[in-house]
């Protein structure tokens, strides 16, 4: 993997007269000595696995702890109600993010993107986009390369695991990846793509990883919603022409430094934050009894 900076991707795109996603595709082919067709088909497999996970949602499934399950159905019913405050697109994004998070907690097959805990963000945004905007699947696959490129840079220059960087590194990274992908789909240029990612990530900086009982359930599942919705609104700001006042690569550096400063008790150890509240302790007592 050769990109440590988003700016390097942009300069290669400019020098080689390629689109953002093509730069990432080429890099993947070089790294793994595979053809463009092989890489594209593997990415397509990933997207199809996301769609299968989405459509296989089981509203009756409950996680082993009993904390997770059934909320996706509430949102499905909610989407059918008239006079909702928000439109179909965003309502669907929320529903799909919750469903994927619940499926993960219930030991269903999902696609880690970038992690299992944050597996709902990117599919919620991209599957909804394909369904609602009726675009060809290949365009979504291209957008996944954009998301993947942003994620690779974050993994190289910062972190993508909650244990190392807190939730900002998981949901924050997923949100930044999805934010860039949407800008690409909406026809924004490369500058708008990386600024969309930066705007999304900035909104997630400092987010801690303090899950109840150490399980990928509370607050993780609903964080997928905030990551997905944040990606959409950040993309809209970027397309409107708003630019992050902080250079996108510097936002990623900041995320790394903030992650390093987060105390261990807020990095997936469940030693503080939400995990030690009375409610959490009560839930855990019920599980063990």
């Amino acid at each position: 993997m050769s990109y440590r900076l988003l700016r390097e991707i942009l300069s290669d795109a400019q020098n080689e007269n390629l689109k953002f996603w093509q730069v990432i595709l080429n890099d993947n082919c070089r790294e793994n000595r595979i053809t463009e067709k092989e890489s594209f088909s593997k990415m397509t497999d990933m997207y199809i696995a996301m769609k299968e996970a989405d459509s296989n949602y089981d509203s009756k499934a409950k996680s082993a702890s009993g904390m997770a399950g059934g909320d996706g159905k509430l949102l499905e019913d909610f989407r059918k109600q008239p006079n909702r405050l928000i439109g179909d697109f965003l309502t669907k994004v929320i529903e799909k993010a919750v469903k994927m998070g619940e499926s993960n907690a219930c030991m269903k097959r999902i696609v880690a993107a970038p992690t299992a805990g944050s597996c709902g963000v990117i599919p919620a945004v991209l599957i909804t986009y394909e369904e609602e905007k009726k675009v060809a699947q290949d365009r979504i696959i291209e957008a996944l390369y954009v998301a993947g490129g942003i994620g690779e840079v974050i993994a190289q220059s910062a972190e993508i695991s909650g244990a190392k960087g807190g939730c900002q590194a998981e949901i924050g990274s997923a949100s930044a990846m999805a934010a860039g992908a949407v800008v690409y789909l909406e026809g924004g240029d490369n500058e708008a793509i990386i600024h969309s990612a930066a705007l999304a990530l900035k909104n997630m900086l400092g987010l801690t990883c303090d899950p109840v009982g150490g399980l990928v359930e509370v607050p993780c599942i609903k964080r997928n919603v905030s990551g997905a919705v944040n990606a959409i609104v950040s993309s809209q700001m970027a397309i409107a022409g708003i630019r992050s006042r902080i250079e996108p690569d510097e936002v990623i550096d900041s995320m790394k430094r903030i992650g390093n400063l987060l105390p261990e008790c807020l990095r997936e150890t469940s030693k503080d934050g939400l995990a030690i509240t009375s409610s959490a302790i009560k839930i855990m007592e019920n599980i063990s009894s």
Partner: protein
Amino acid sequence: MQLFDIIGPVMVGPSSSHTAGAVKIGYVAHKLLSEQVVKAEIFLHGSFLATGKGHGTDKAIVAGLLGMQPDDVRIPESLEIADKMGVDIKFSGISLKDASPNSVLLKLTGKSGRMLEIVGESLGGSIINIAAIDGLSANFSGDRPTLIVHNLDQPGHVAEVTSMLSHKSVNIASMQLYRENRGGNAVMILECDQEIPESAVEWLKKLEGVVKVTYYSLIPTGGSL
């Protein structure tokens, strides 16, 4: 990290370290035993012990021992499947010395009576490390074909193994040597870029001073299922 570690892998949830990584440890162990597991004593350490239940770590390890990969949808039912197959499985907690938080000690017995003891660590993402084999240190990820040779600490064994690999045109990616004490038990671990032919592995087993040869191949066997 590679692109398809970022968009991917496809896996059964909920946790890449506690579920997918745990399946992978079990899978590597099953491949190393190279025959159907009939008895497994599973000792969970640290966070595997503390939060394993909620993450399905127990089911994940057993699924791997049965030959399932991390994306196998039968993982949640692995305990029932093992039971039906008559595999004897026992779980307990343990405190391992100097082990990473997500570790497990596996004591396995195969169909023919072959035994294997490994310590596996899940390092995050779905990256794993096999930290010990049969009581001796090790250090490999299961991402490459890996040859493990237990031998007596005598001159010449490394040369025998490496010249065999050279003869079979197998390139060595990494190589580690450990020993208990001078002249005692030693182990060499070689991660390779190509698969090693079965006949060559069998040949090694017959060499004097070689106690045990274990080979981890990336070629799926379909497991014991």
